[in-house]
């Protein structure tokens, strides 16, 4: 991806025209430096002259990746809910676990509140976030007018971003498997490979999503 520099707004430059149309301005969210926004060529990222933070990106494949990530998250999390994604056996005993059973592992005793933490971080929030992203981004991808409450949906998706921890959970599953390795024979269910697939797709989405770019598109599409 090529990086192009936005024009910095220097002292004394006129800024009293409409700051969001011709000669559109954007402020860096990291350092507040003002920039004029040029036409962004495909595959380019507009960077802040002061701190180097990405101001805007050409959307490129980002919309497709967001949608791909949202679809796989919903389908795979839902399918791992009740189907075992791990199975182990030792000395004639076998046991298996589903996503729901794992979320309830802390039930009983002083760790009960953690049950809610798990239900939310690995099941509820990833699904809500995926649905909200689809609601906000799908019409843009299809070149349609945004759906009602599209902005609220996108705001919700960004708010939930740090708290939707399905990919962290998947790494936790791998670590748990190694811990068990010495004591029992481990069988990987289909859902385990599905979870691994989510990990890759979610990381791909995280690296291509530029919140500010989507906001700018959402504003423009809502107007016309």
């Amino acid at each position, binding site marked *: 991806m090529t990086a192009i520099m936005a024009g*910095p*707004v*220097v*002292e004394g430059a006129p800024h009293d025209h409409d*700051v*969001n149309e011709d000669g559109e*301005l*954007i*402020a*860096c*969210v*990291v*350092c*507040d*430096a*003002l920039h004029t926004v040029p036409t962004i060529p495909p595959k380019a990222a507009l960077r802040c*002259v*002061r*701190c*180097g933070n990405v*101001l*805007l990106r050409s959307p490129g494949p980002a919309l497709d990746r967001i949608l791909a990530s949202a679809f796989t998250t919903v389908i795979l999390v839902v399918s791992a809910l009740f189907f075992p994604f*791990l199975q182990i*056996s*030792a*000395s004639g*005993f076998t*046991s298996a*676990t589903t996503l729901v059973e*794992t*979320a309830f*592992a*802390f039930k009983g*005793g*002083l*760790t009960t509140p*953690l049950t809610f*933490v*798990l239900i939310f*971080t690995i099941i509820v929030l990833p699904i809500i976030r995926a649905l909200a992203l689809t609601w906000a981004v799908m019409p843009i991808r299809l070149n349609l007018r945004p759906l009602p409450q599209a902005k609220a949906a*996108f*705001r919700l998706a960004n708010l939930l971003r*740090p708290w939707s*921890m399905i990919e*962290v*959970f998947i*790494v*936790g*599953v791998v670590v*748990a498997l*190694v*811990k*068990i*390795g010495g*004591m*029992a024979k481990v069988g990987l269910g289909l859902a385990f490979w599905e979870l691994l697939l989510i990990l890759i797709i979610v990381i791909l989405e995280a690296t291509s999503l530029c919140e*500010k770019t989507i*906001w*700018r598109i959402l*504003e423009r599409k809502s107007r016309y």
Partner: protein
Amino acid sequence: MAHSGTEKQVLTAREAGLLGCGTCGRVSPKGTTVCPRCETPLHSRRPGSIEKVWAWWLAGIFAYIPANLYPMLRTSFLGREQDSTIVGGVIDLIHHGSFLIAAIVFFASVIIPVSKFFAVGYLAWTVKGRAHISEHQRTVLYEVVEFVGRWSMIDVFVVAVLAALVNLGFVVNFKPGIAAFFFALSVAFTMISALSLDPRLIWDNSTGDGASDE
């Protein structure tokens, strides 16, 4: 620094008498209360940012102490019960010869949380005082802290998977310990602390050359 000259010329939205949105970057005239693009409340700098950072930071440290003192996991293997703390679990992994996994758990449960306390504390401290590293380096530090914080939850998930999955009668069983609760609290508090920091504050006292000699 080589680009100190250009940095001094840069005009910020605040200096231009405008409001830059901290979420989407849209520029609005002074007096606008809600960003027309993303509909979040507009502030030139988020109010009470540093106070919130310190409050959640302290809460995170307080929760991290019992998280390390109490057992994270109770293992019963062939009838023998054994409690292990976070660090104890890492030592067990080393004894089993799983060095890579021991390193991952140690990194996620000890190195990340502890260095996060130092990093967030340093960033909040240097907003009003002097910094030994440039604004640029502090911005990188801020971004790293924001990115890695949630990965500390790995150990809590490991305990959940072990307790849910390993239920092999007499052979081996796992039960979660109370430390998992404190640890999750600590991770959440520190995440909120880092999220409360308005990164624009890092740049506000910029001298242009990134050093503290002014």
